[in-house]
């Protein structure tokens, strides 16, 4: 028994390793090209020649964006966290109610929210500006956060409600019998059980916030004090130059932080109470 287990595990590891290496090829190319001059990029795409490798282009990209890079990283991080806080905070109670309440009404409410996932965000961007103007939030950071959260709510709510439905009712029912208010049940009992799915939502929402360079520009306006890092990066690349010496280092700057965030967060998808504790 043990031996077959070990060989099948070895096969698993081997197969995954091959697949993993294949998956990493584009990233590998992106990284090494950030250190190569134009000719090398075009003519020897897969190798890094130590003789011509240089950090000058990376440094140039770091310095050439015409706004403070650290400030932009921090601002983008702020946006990511704020949007997640808002969308998760409003989605958890709503998802709980939708998942736990039987009957047609809340089923329809869920469908209503889910319909939001069908809408490509770019299409509604400008009418949204109109709404923001009407409530006086146009050009403000809260306005931007609210819009970006609005685009995240459908998906977040959808996966939350599905997940909560998989959690047995026994725990919350027991707590309510003991006299806890609904709100307390939601946040002290159900929410801790949702760690994997909350982490999932956080990561996916963080990505869409990070990679969104259109909404910040249009809502905050071109003269905004703070810019997101992706905005600046795309400004550098938007000429769509074939000047790869600019493009690749810039791309590297853009993706590194979010990649790091993902590596850190993915642990939480695994931690959180294992199913054993849930079954009690």
């Amino acid at each position, binding site marked *: 028994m043990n031996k077959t287990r070990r060989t099948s595990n070895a096969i698993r590891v081997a197969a995954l390793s091959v697949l993993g290496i294949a998956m990493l090829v584009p990233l590998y190319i992106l990284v090494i090209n950030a250190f190569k001059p134009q000719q090398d990029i075009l003519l020897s795409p897969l190798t890094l020649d130590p003789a011509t490798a240089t950090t000058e282009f990376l440094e140039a990209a770091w310095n050439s964006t015409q706004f403070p890079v650290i400030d932009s990283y921090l601002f983008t991080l702020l946006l990511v966290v704020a949007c997640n806080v808002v969308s998760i905070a409003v989605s958890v109670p709503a998802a709980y109610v939708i998942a736990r309440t039987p009957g047609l009404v809340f089923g329809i409410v869920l469908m209503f929210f889910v319909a939001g996932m069908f809408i490509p965000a770019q299409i509604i961007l400008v009418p949204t500006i109109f709404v923001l103007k009407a409530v006086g939030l146009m050009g403000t950071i809260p306005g931007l956060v609210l819009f970006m959260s609005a685009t995240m709510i459908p998906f977040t709510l959808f*996966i939350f409600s599905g997940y909560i439905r998989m959690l047995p009712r026994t725990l919350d029912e027991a707590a309510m019998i003991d006299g806890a208010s609904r709100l307390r049940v939601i946040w002290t009992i159900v929410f801790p059980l949702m760690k994997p799915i909350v982490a999932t939502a956080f990561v996916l929402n963080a990505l869409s916030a990070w990679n969104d360079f259109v909404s910040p520009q249009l809502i905050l306006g071109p003269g905004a004090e703070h810019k997101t890092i992706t905005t600046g990066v795309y400004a550098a690349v938007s000429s769509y130059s074939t000047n790869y010496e600019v493009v690749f280092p810039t791309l590297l700057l853009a993706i590194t932080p979010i990649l790091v965030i993902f590596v850190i967060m993915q642990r939480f998808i695994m931690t959180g109470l294992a199913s054993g504790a849930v079954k009690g």
Partner: protein
Amino acid sequence: MTAVDTARVGGHRSPARRTPPRPPRWRRIGEQALNGAFTLPALIIYVGLMVIPVGYAVYYSFTEYNGIPSQSPEWVGLDNYTRIFADPASEMHSSLLVTAAIAIIGSLVVNAVALALALLLQKKSRFNTVGRVVMFYPHVLSALIVGFLWQALLGPHGAINGLIEASVGSTIPFLSDPNVALWTLIGVIIWAQFGVQLVLYIAGLQTVSAELQEAARIDGATRVQVFRHVTWPALAPTFTIALVTSLLSLLKAYDVVLGLTNGGPGDATQTWAYEILAVSFANNRVGLACAQAVLLIVVAAILSFSIMALRRRADAGAEAIS
């Protein structure tokens, strides 16, 4: 098992059962209202910043409008929709086919790959942690960058063809032959997308009762049987969510098209979203663009609701298992 479970299984009330008496009607309505209140914050934000703008889009779909604020829209009724269906310049129907191919083939492959990898990577270990990061990172790159990177790899003078030409002498027209380009596009989209569904399946696998799986194995079930009879049914809601989210993402495929082929060669890789954003909007044909967008939303709605309706029994079954 708790007292309540025993009661359910037993099918009769046991003296230990402690359900509270049914509250009076007014109280129940009050409770419903309280339930509603929990959804209110989400509703306000969502309706204000997504639903109302969509309403505008629907309105514009019945007008001819060039998007400039000082020039007002002109009502034209169903003209935009007629143009889409009649397609006099034969440009839109091909985009429909391209999008359908991406959505159908893409979702099937994405879900199959994601589920398989989730099963292989579900246990906690350093190797699996690294593996998960490696499988997910393509989604971290914005779709535009993904398209751009793969174009650099697969172009006629790109890295891959450079290698192939050095060894075999000719190149593969990944991006220059219209049919191959479409398959290349689908492949690239799958590459960038499956990480999302992978994460969803891993999260879902967390809730499958390990004890049940263990019990089944002790009873002599093979790994495949355990999967079919314990894991898969318990995973039902996750599968629904994964399927729907992958389908919706694929229907809206756009950024990656820009980076990879920009719709080319010819119009071989123009998706419906590309048609909306890069053609209609770019030409300031806002009314037409909105009509196309409304159609996209309608199709997405029909597909999603159908899938969710079909899966309802399976989803309900999952809760009973856990």
